């Protein structure tokens, strides 16, 4: 069971802005193995977010193949992609994007409700995920009653709760101070190495990328080297 969870072959993404064509990805090929923590590193505008969105099934490539968990996602319709994301992927966002009206448990339970799970099971699973990220004391707090680091832990719990094949994170510590950033990165390492998840994280910061098992360096829409 240690094969590739993600495999991308010759991915191109061209954005058309009126007459102008922006090549955000220029033939990217890459693999992510099960249980790996991979960072996508590069400067602003290099195509990191674009690549992540392709890999996560949020957007489709102009050309190329993307195989996740054995499924070709470049061939899927919008409806199939929605279902695919619901069942296979978790997301962590830079701005946390928690629902302000919901407390931590309800926020974490939300993706489960999209799957149609009943309320008592949802709550149980959500509480379990919140314990995993060390927030047992903040279960009934709303986002506005938590610090940025705590909110991002809720965000991580929300990604974990669906037991996804892969978790995607775009600059997950972009809004946090240095100390909180390090503790969140340690948590992400733990989530991968101890709980056996697979994580793909985008960052522009080489220091942060060093927490990953492997780094894909991207420049002008191409993976220039790996380390």
């Amino acid at each position, binding site marked *: 069971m240690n094969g590739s969870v993600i495999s991308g072959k010759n991915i191109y993404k061209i954005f058309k802005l009126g007459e102008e064509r922006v090549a955000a990805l220029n033939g990217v090929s890459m693999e992510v193995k099960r249980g790996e923590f991979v960072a996508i590193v590069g400067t602003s505008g290099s195509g990191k977010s674009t690549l992540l969105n392709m890999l996560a099934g949020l957007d489709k490539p102009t050309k190329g193949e993307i195989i996740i968990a054995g499924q070709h996602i470049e061939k899927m319709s919008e409806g199939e992609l929605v279902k695919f994301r619901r069942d296979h992927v978790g997301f962590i966002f830079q701005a946390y994007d928690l629902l302000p*009206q919901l407390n931590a448990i309800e926020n974490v339970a939300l993706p489960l409700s999209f799957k149609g799970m009943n309320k008592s099971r949802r709550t149980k699973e959500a509480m379990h995920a919140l314990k995993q990220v060390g927030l047992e004391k903040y279960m009934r707090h709303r986002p506005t009653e938590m610090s940025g680091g705590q909110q991002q832990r809720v965000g991580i719990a929300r990604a974990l709760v669906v037991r996804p094949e892969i978790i995607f994170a775009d600059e997950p510590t972009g809004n946090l101070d240095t100390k909180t950033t390090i503790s969140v990165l340690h948590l992400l390492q733990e989530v991968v190495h101890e709980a056996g998840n697979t994580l793909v994280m985008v960052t522009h910061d080489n220091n942060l990328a060093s927490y990953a098992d492997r780094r894909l360096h991207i420049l002008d829409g191409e993976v220039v080297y790996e380390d």
Partner: protein
Amino acid sequence: MWTEQEILMILQGLWETIVIVGVSTFFGYVLGLPLGVLLAVTDSDGIKPHPMLYKVLDVVTNILRSVPFIILLVVLIPLTRAIVGKSYGTAATIVPLVIAAAPFIGRMVESSIKEVDHGVIEAAQSMGAGTFKIIWNVLLAEARTSLLVGVTIAFGTILGYSAMAGAVGGGGLGSIAIRYGYNRWQPNILWPCVIILVLLVQLFQVLGMKISKDLDRRRS
């Protein structure tokens, strides 16, 4: 100052007003809530943009909103007669009120939904939420306090319209005020009706203010 009969009449008018406004607000939302959701969802920055449908709803809503209520009342008499069988009285007042309220409620619902943070909507989409799940679990759930404030505003506005309906034979306090105050100049009937109407509007404004203050506290 008042005969027992007059007091009973005013109380009866108050009750009719509450029924008319309550029922009209309810049916106004039966039409206006889906309308507002559709407007918000099909707009170019909504979760399911649909330019054609949006344009049609937008135009119809604007046209209905720009017809003065007193004119709408007259224009709708055939429809009212078709639905309730007659063109005067309590039930007959409700039809034009609902038609006038629905587009107004639709716009309020639309703007409440558009206040919901875009990041949160995108997060839900990325988690694989379908359109209906997003409408229910994210848009309506997040906008609920703002929607509730909207209900109190709608109630107040419909109350104002309902008094106008009195002019063409609708029921309620408005009609009593017009019949006894305007036609017969009986201030002892006119003023209690006016005062009760003002108090009702105030009551709902205070309620709306209280809800939005609670909302602000939660957001801070």
